[in-house]
């Protein structure tokens, strides 16, 4: 894993875990790698993985079964998507709107582009 320079590593690890869940590599109610194993795999300090897991537990994406380890929550996928949607609507969409306004792109043009994008996606 290549870590970007701008974001703290523990946040990047939480994103990595969410990605594994969304891609169904780690499935619901399944045990996820131990702190030590994931630290070894990602070559990071186990304390950082621990912090990422704590954060994911707070968000309800994973939960701890005492003595067994961390598991993917049954509603982890929805939780991740809800949080992403919120983040998109709150921080990314305003930037997009600003550019659309600045460049004077009309809604009809956007609609046409969006529809052809969706069609293109469906073909693949």
């Amino acid at each position, binding site marked *: 894993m290549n*870590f970007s*320079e701008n974001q703290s*590593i523990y946040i990047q690890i939480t994103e990595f875990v969410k990605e594994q869940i969304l891609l169904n590599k780690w499935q619901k109610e399944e045990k996820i790698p131990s702190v*030590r194993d994931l*630290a070894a795999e*990602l070559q990071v300090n186990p*304390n950082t993985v621990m912090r990422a897991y704590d954060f994911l537990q707070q968000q309800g994406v994973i939960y701890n079964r005492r003595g067994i380890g961390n598991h993917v929550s049954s509603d982890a996928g929805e939780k991740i998507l809800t949080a992403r949607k919120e983040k998109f609507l709150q921080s990314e969409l305003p930037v997009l709107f600003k550019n659309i306004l600045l460049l004077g792109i009309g809604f009809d043009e956007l609609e046409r582009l969006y529809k052809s994008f969706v069609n293109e996606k469906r073909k693949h």
Partner: protein
Amino acid sequence: MVKIENLTFWYSKQNRIFEKLNLELNAGHIYGLLGKNGAGKTTLLKLICGLSFPKSGTVTLDGLIPARREPGFLADIFLVPEEISVPSLTPGKFADIHSGFYPEFDPAQFGEFLEKFKLDADQNCSGMSHGQKRKAMIAFALATNTRYLFLDEPTSGLDIPSKAAFRSMLAASFSEEKTIILSTHMVRDLESLIDSVIILENHNIILNHPLDQIAQKLTFSHSSLSSSPGEIIYSVKRELGTTMISLNPSGITGNVDLETLFNACIDIPDKLSSYFKH
């Protein structure tokens, strides 16, 4: 816990290495020890291991004095120096002879580490390259599972895959009872492992803090524009822009750029350490 109080040390009286140095290190951390050439990184490790003795002041590890070199102390500590001398033995034979001194030595783990480093337990070290010898010694050091582990420039001389293997092994063998110090100039190699940074400069320690605390106070950014949301306290021009340290306005923690932090500690030590006074 490593506890150093009022430590003064010199090799020649005119040139003091440490002057009333104080330092406390706790278990459960991987410390990055940074300092310019000659700042005293290796000397500090030697004093902690009992290979050098303080001129005044005290060094203790869990209350034990390193200079006394008691067996119980030596069984729980391992130092891999920057320049190593390996006897003319195979790694396997070396472990047979030396592992008896380390009650927690794990032979299976040693074999696994050698394999990850692509080393043969039955090849004589005298026929190995410098990097291979270092790797054999690092594999042994990690497998001793001592609670105190000190590595002086661990990645120097290691090829690129070996550096990754080293990071992975260190992460796997670390636990909350252990205190690990990595002394290094190659911060990029070890950035993802270090959770606390110790910076030596001017005969003393000018910074000893967990990286997450540093990230709460300071923001590191690189930009083509010299602007930042917080007050800029340090900046250096680099190709295609400026690298800046500014006061963190939001409390949202980003990444700590150790190289820039180190440079700032050397250039503006007083200013920087003033942000971390308790």
